[in-house]
Each structure stands twice: as structure tokens, then as C-alpha cells.
């Protein structure tokens, strides 16, 4: 595991941990940083960190426009998201629902450091489950609409998932995912949506809230470790790194609060793995008391051994691990695991059967009869 983390071979990691390392970079290192950052969706983040660190002068001429260009896209994205979130808040105000932003949009609205250079294609909101139908109706009246789905896909979302099918507003092109919980209803892990909702905090954008800081970390960790898709895994790991380092700097009691909250929500194991791989891959260690308490959530040794074979390879960028070989197998194994955790086995089999055999022959709106 140590080889890929070598500073010479993995300048992206070095810069995320300490942007000032670029002062020692030769042109070959900048070149590799550009390739790795672009590949991992982190070029704008690198640009934002270098700008924040006052390191602009250290950037060689050849590299400069790449960073500036990434920042142009990032700033336009922030502006678009702020406007979109404003539209969503106003639409839901009429029915007295204050949406809770999740993931990327939440980092931006909460002013988390994970907002730095973070691009994303959809806004995720969390609303009370009992209001979900009204919320969807109001959004549709205000110009949002969804793709036509087959009856099976509709049922998949509405009976088993934690969100309704994605919506998009007519002329604007930013997808909106409306959640009433943070994990699928069928998942082996259950989350108490009411406990999350009770702790929300106002954001910097009027009319919308975000989850409490510890809950934002836990949601991000759950998403990273349960979703089974690793295209943006290293970027998400970097989000966690930025959030945790920032939140504990602001509040010395944050780490213990985070561990306690994880236990309370039944996410101790998730946090355990997240911290384990943050320590291994990004040198982020919890303080001794918090780590000791979190150790109680550790899996049995053989299971931990197995995860240690899989997660580190899957979480590193493809540009660093290579696209094939063991990392590809590890990603596939974890993809299967995520489905296993998402649904009970009989339901999973039924779902896979439907997707593999029925869907290709299903009649869809617009198909010739």
C-alpha cells in the first residue's frame, strides 16, 4: 500500500495534505499533478487550495491557465447552484417546507471547506417523508419534471429507495434529487430520519438548512462507503478530510461528538472504516480518546482484513492505481457488497432479474406499440 502513496508518484495527495509542497515541484511533478487532479475531478480544488495558501506565485507559467480555467468553471458553478437553491427554497416556501441540503450543495451553503473547488451535477435535498408527495407536486407545478420511468422503476424508487425519481427544471439543467431519508428504506443499515431532522442548522442561503456538522460528515462517509461507485471516491475522501480537519479546528470537542453521534445513529462501523482509510491514505488520525471510543465499533479481525484488501485500492484514483488488475476487482467486489447492503437478498435477486431480463423487453412511453 505504501508504494502508490509515494510523494513522487502521487503529487495530488501531497498537495491536498499540504499545498505548500508545490514550492519544491519541478515541471514533471506539476505535469503529474495536472493529470491526477483532472482525472480525479480535483483540479479546481487544487487551484482553490493553492489560491487560499497564497501560492499563486509558485505556479509555473505552463500550469497557471489550467488552474485559472478550473476556477472560472468552479465560480460559475457556485453561482448557478446558489440561484438554483434559491429557486427550490422559494418553491417550497409556499407549503412551509424548509429543504435540507445534502452533499455538494450543503458544503457550499454551509461554508464547509469541502466546498473548495467542488463541482457536482445535482442538488440533493432532504424533506420529511410525510410531506414528500406535496413537495413533489409543488415542484412539478413550478416547472420541475422527471424522465418517464417504467412502472417497475417508479416502484423501485417509491417503495424501496430513500428518494423519489430525479427531477429537473425546464430550462436550467441542474438535476434535483429529493430524499426523505439518507439510506434506502430496504437497507440493512437504518437511519433515524427524525434524529437527523431534529439537528439541522440554518445555512448561509436564506430559507434552506443543512444537516448538523457531524451529520454532514457521517452522511458523506456513508455515501462513500455504501454507494458502491468509486468514480469520485478519492474526491469524496478529500471532502471528508477537509470537513473533519476544519470542524475539529473550530471545535476541540468535535471528534468525540462525531463518534458519539455515529454510535447514536448506528453509523459507528461506517465512521470506523472512514477514519481507518482516512488515516491510511490521507494521514488523518483521530485524537487518542476519540479513536479509543471508535475502536468499539471495529469489525471482527477477518472482516477488517478483507476490507483492508478492498477499500484502499478502490478509494485511490484510477489514474494512480491503474484501471485494471486488483483495484478493478476490488471496486467490483465493493459494488456487489453495496447491493447486498442495500436490499435483502431475495429483493436484490428480484431486482437484478428484472433489470437483466424484463427491462430489455419492457414497453416504454414513446416506443412503437
Amino acid at each position, binding site marked *: 500500500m505504501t508504494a502508490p502513496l509515494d510523494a513522487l508518484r502521487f503529487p495530488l495527495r501531497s498537495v491536498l495534505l499540504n499545498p505548500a509542497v508545490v514550492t519544491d515541484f519541478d515541471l514533471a511533478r506539476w*505535469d503529474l499533478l*495536472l*493529470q491526477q487532479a483532472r482525472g480525479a475531478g480535483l483540479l479546481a480544488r487544487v487551484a482553490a487550495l493553492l489560491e487560499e495558501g497564497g501560492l499563486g506565485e509558485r505556479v509555473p507559467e505552463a500550469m497557471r*491557465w489550467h488552474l485559472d*480555467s478550473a476556477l*472560472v468553471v468552479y465560480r*460559475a458553478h457556485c*453561482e448557478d447552484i446558489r440561484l438554483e437553491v434559491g429557486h427550490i427554497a422559494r418553491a417550497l416556501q409556499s407549503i412551509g417546507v424548509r429543504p435540507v441540503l445534502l452533499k455538494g450543495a450543503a458544503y457550499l451553503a454551509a461554508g464547509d471547506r469541502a466546498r473548495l473547488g467542488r463541482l457536482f451535477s445535482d442538488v440533493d435535498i432532504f424533506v420529511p417523508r410525510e410531506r414528500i408527495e406535496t413537495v413533489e407536486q409543488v415542484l412539478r407545478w413550478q416547472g420541475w419534471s422527471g424522465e418517464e420511468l417504467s412502472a417497475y422503476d417508479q416502484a423501485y424508487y417509491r417503495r424501496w429507495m430513500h428518494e423519489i425519481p430525479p427531477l429537473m427544471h425546464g430550462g436550467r439543467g441542474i438535476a434535483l434529487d429529493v430524499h426523505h431519508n439518507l439510506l434506502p428504506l430496504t437497507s440493512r443499515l437504518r437511519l433515524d430520519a427524525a434524529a437527523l431532522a431534529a439537528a439541522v442548522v440554518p445555512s448561509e442561503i436564506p430559507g434552506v438548512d443543512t444537516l448538523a456538522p457531524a451529520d454532514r460528515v457521517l452522511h458523506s462517509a456513508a455515501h462513500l462507503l455504501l454507494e458502491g461507485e468509486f468514480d469520485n471516491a478519492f474526491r469524496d475522501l478529500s471532502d471528508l478530510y477537509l470537513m473533519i480537519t476544519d470542524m475539529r479546528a473550530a471545535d476541540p470537542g468535535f471528534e468525540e461528538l462525531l463518534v458519539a453521534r455515529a454510535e447514536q445513529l448506528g453509523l459507528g462501523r461506517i465512521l470506523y472504516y472512514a477514519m481507518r482509510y482516512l488515516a491510511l491514505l490521507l494521514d488523518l488520525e483521530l485524537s487518542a480518546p476519540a479513536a479509543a471510543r471508535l475502536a468499539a465499533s471495529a469489525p471482527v479481525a477477518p472482516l477488517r482484513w478483507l476490507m483492508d484488501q478492498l477499500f484502499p485500492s478502490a478509494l485511490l484514483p484510477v489514474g494512480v492505481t491503474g484501471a485494471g488488475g486488483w483495484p478493478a476487482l476490488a471496486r467490483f467486489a465493493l459494488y456487489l457488497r453495496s447491493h447486498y447492503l442495500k436490499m435483502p437478498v431475495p429483493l436484490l435477486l428480484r431486482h437484478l432479474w428484472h433489470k437483466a431480463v424484463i427491462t430489455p423487453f419492457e414497453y416504454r412511453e414513446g416506443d412503437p406499440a
Partner: protein
Amino acid sequence: MPQADLESRLRSRGLVFGAGRFSVRLISRLESVAQGISLVYGDYETVDSDFADFTVRVRRAGGLHRIVRPQAEFSLDGAKPFSPLPLAHAFPLLEWGLNWCVSNHCHQYLIVHAAVVEKHGRALILPGAPGSGKSTLCALLTGRGGWRLLSDELTLIDPVNGSVHANPRPVSLKNESIDIVRRELPGAVLSPPVTDTLKGTVSHLQPAADSVSRAHEPAAPALVVFPRFTDGSSAELLPLPKGEAFIRMADNAFNYSILGLAGFRALAALLDQSDCYEYPNGGDVQHALATMDALVAP
């Protein structure tokens, strides 16, 4: 560079060369790619640099297609913007990929979908829908008319002063325009035509060495001419109001919404310095060359 050296670099650490104003590190084991590069990039400098703006790969797609109907795929740092295409389309795929690199990553410019050429220090921008004849016009103006090629596809506008930056790369020719160029420019070097692509038959024309060597020399904006293909004969230029030219160029810009106010100002600065016309283009080569020359007559 001898062909063997070029191929061995392409296969190993990559060949770094100046493709227009950008440096590209290309890694590919495909013969048609090596052949295309040595043919139409003949005048381009290979660079012995540790840094490249874009590290791109063109390789055989994996899976079943390794055996049955082999395909080529293009990637930039792992991102694959296009579906794989038949292996024979590898070289055009590289060219489309390099265009994508520019239009998606170079937001230091306002990027408009238009050809641009220059004569007597005055840039002539030719925006136009596919089929309007802008590439053919661009090939003829630069191949015979004494114009310098800045780009056949992507006009890069400086947001500060509206000047136009050059990115001279092979000119993409489609279908009949390949025959026209062969006929009108007897000495022209073209890549082997590839048939049955999404755009029909495609071939790339090597640009003049003078255009290539002046890749870092910008041009002052002066003229915007929208070619419009017509079945009749080529006609005189029709003056176009600047407001309409503005809207049509903004519609043809790849990153107008990303640049926001800066994009608006760039386009306004450019059009303030430009005369705008529409050109009913019936395919008469002499007429086209004479009409465009008259616009920049000293």
C-alpha cells in the same frame, strides 16, 4: 523525426508535440494514429518537455470488441468523452478529442464554434453550422488565398481585449469538400480519408508551415462573416446588424454561460472592432476568394 522514433515514443512514454498553441502528450499503439500524426502534423514541433497541457490516449477498446469489430477509444486523464468508434476512425477520433480538450478546458478564452483566418493583420471569423462550407472556405483561403490559419473549428477570443488567439491544427474536411480541396490545392497533404464516420467521409488537411510557426501570434478582430450554403450561385455579402451577430455568436459559443459577464464583454469588444456580414455561399471558389480578399484590401 524518423518514423521509427515517433512510433516508439507514441508507444512508451508518449510523444509530446505542440498541437496548435497547446502541448499534447499522445500515447497510442495504433498504427493509423502514428501515420496520421507524421502526415498532417509534419511541420509541428516535437517538444522535449516534462510538461504537457493534455495527456491523451487513443487505444483499442477492451472487452469483446478486442476480438469482434475492434474499436478505438479516446481518453484524457481517464475521462472518456466519446463512445468508442470503429478502429479505422482512430485518427479523426483523436482530432475530435483534441477539439473537446480545448472546448471543455480552456476557459481563459471565450470559445466560439467558428473558423478563423487572418490576412494583413486582420482576423476573419467564419462561424457557421455544419454544412455551411466554413471548413472548405477556411482550407481554400489558407491554402491558396494567402491567409494564415488560426483555427478551422474553435475561435479563441481573449476576454480582456477581444483579440483572437491562434490554435492552428489540421483542417477537418468532410465529404465533397475533400474532393474540392484535392482539386483546388494540388500539393495539399491530406490524411487518408476515413469513410462511414458520424460525419460521413473525413480527412484532415495539413496546414501551411507558416501558420503553424505563428501559433502564438494573436490577430486583431476585424470581420465576422457567416457563410450560408445556397443552391444558387454565390452572391454578394449582406451586411448583418451587430446585435444579431452577437446573438448568433453567443449561441455558437461553448462557454458563454460559464464566462458570464466576462464572455459578454469579450464578445462586445470583438464586435466593436468588427464588420459583420452574411455570405450566401454557392461553392464558387473564385468568388469566395475575391470576396474575402476585398474585405481586407489594404
